């Protein structure tokens, strides 16, 4: 029971810290002092105490979207093992449900953007749909690599049966999956080089333009959702890179938190050192990730045939 308590605590409390770390790393690179590490928590707290403004064009879809989107992510968070080897809602085939819960969250955000009737938000929704369609095969192929090499289709079985090379170095195909999932992380959480979360020009925005009309508590929910999405992808990666410490819950939580914070630092470094790709180059980035994942899958198949 206590492991599920830790799981829920991690899901509720930890994700916003990753946003704080990314902000801090970017500030360091820019030579500024930067906001406090806990600034995202204060932001969300402030937003929760504000009122929300709704356009008269919008319907209930617009009001429901932030709640539904956060709910899908929270459900997805219950499927993924975090500190211990099992997740509260684990069942056979939960990997596919995980991938499509993320898709459902995105769909709800997009129809809310269309609901506002604003041309900018419609444009953002169309871009998000186009890029998500390309990011999805990459994610599913990467998950397929992991599933095939562990011959299992649920997270807890996969993490238990993941093959490890000598000296705790993961197999090359797992490393390919890690690289691809990191690329998908950058695309899905709208980070540089796919999207710039700090941009203020509607013409270049992708994800941020869709949430322009949300305010107050709704915006707080959206912030929490995007932080949670980042955390989920980071947790997925950490478990692929570090052998799972199943014996101790606290050691598992420590490994997860350290790993997730390292990934936040890495995202911050990527954001500070890379320029955003031009919009026409984003599909190339995502298709490249898919083909790389396909290569990884081929390698697994050849290894199986040998």
């Amino acid at each position, binding site marked *: 029971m206590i492991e599920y308590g830790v799981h829920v605590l991690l899901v509720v409390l930890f994700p916003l810290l990753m946003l704080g770390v990314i902000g801090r790393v970017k500030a360091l690179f820019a030579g500024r002092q930067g906001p406090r590490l806990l600034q995202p928590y204060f932001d969300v707290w402030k937003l929760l105490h504000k009122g929300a403004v709704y356009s008269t064009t919008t319907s209930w879809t617009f009001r429901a979207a932030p709640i539904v989107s956060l709910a899908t992510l929270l459900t997805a968070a219950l499927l993924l093992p975090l500190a211990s080897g099992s997740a509260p809602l684990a069942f056979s085939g939960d990997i596919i449900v995980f991938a499509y819960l993320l898709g459902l969250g995105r769909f709800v955000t997009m129809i809310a953007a269309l609901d506002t009737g604003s041309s900018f938000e419609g444009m953002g929704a169309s871009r998000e749909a186009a890029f998500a369609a390309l990011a999805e095969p990459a994610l599913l192929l990467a998950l397929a690599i992991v599933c095939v090499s562990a011959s299992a289709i649920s997270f807890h079985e996969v993490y238990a049966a993941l093959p490890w090379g000598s000296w705790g170095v993961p197999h*090359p195909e797992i490393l390919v999956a890690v690289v691809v999932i990191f690329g998908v992380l950058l695309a899905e959480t709208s980070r540089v080089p796919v999207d710039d979360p700090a941009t203020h020009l509607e013409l270049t925005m992708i994800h941020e333009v869709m949430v322009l009309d949300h305010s107050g508590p709704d915006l707080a929910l959206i912030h929490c959702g995007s932080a949670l999405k980042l955390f989920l992808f980071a947790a997925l990666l950490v478990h692929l890179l570090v052998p799972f410490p199943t014996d101790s819950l606290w050691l598992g939580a420590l490994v997860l938190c350290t790993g997730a914070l390292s990934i936040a630092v890495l995202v911050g470094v990527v954001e500070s050192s890379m320029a955003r790709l031009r919009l026409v180059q984003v599909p*190339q980035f995502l298709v490249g990730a898919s*083909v790389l994942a396909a*290569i990884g899958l*081929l*390698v697994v198949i050849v290894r199986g*045939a*040998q």
Partner: protein
Amino acid sequence: MTGYAGTLLVVLLALDLYMISTSRLGACIRATALQGVVLAVLPLALTGISSSTPTSEVLRLVAVAIATLCVKSGFIPWLMFRTLRGRGESREFEPFVSLHLSQIVNGALFGGAFWIAISLPPAWAHIHTMGLGVGLATLFVGLYMTINRRKEISQVLGFLVLESGVMVIGWALLRQPSFIIEVGALLDVLVAAMVLGILATGLQASPDEAGVGEEGAQA
């Protein structure tokens, strides 16, 4: 050491994919140089050196590795960069097939290469299946680059990649040092790169010297 062959081969494939998807010539040359490093280490991983291997064989393998390193990631990239600077080009602007589509086509090529490697008869059981697959895939990528790109430098690069593929196939099939194939492959690349390199600079130089515009003015 054999355990790392897989990782090296995957790195090789990732570099192939990178070369297919970038239009920057400098990045392509750097990727071939990196492939040279991988190719230098690969024989050591594929042949599986252990403490029981005779010293002469180890020395031979190390010598081959050093030679590969010097030629494939030292001399040829240097020559290519020189040619590149001489021509003042940095990008491959209009390949015949767009870079997006090339990625997908090459995904299919990789699939075909691996399919061939897997479906070999069991009499070939001593070969390194993954090595053969990666070698064929690299060869296909090289061929594809040679056909798809318009600039001479890119075509030479494609040819280099093709040669790397041949070398990987050789190592995967034999899994023992056979100096003749090795040196043959290296010489091939060396000659090709030098000839094409000189040709490439020559082609650029000749229209300037011929002075088409001036002749037109005189006439």
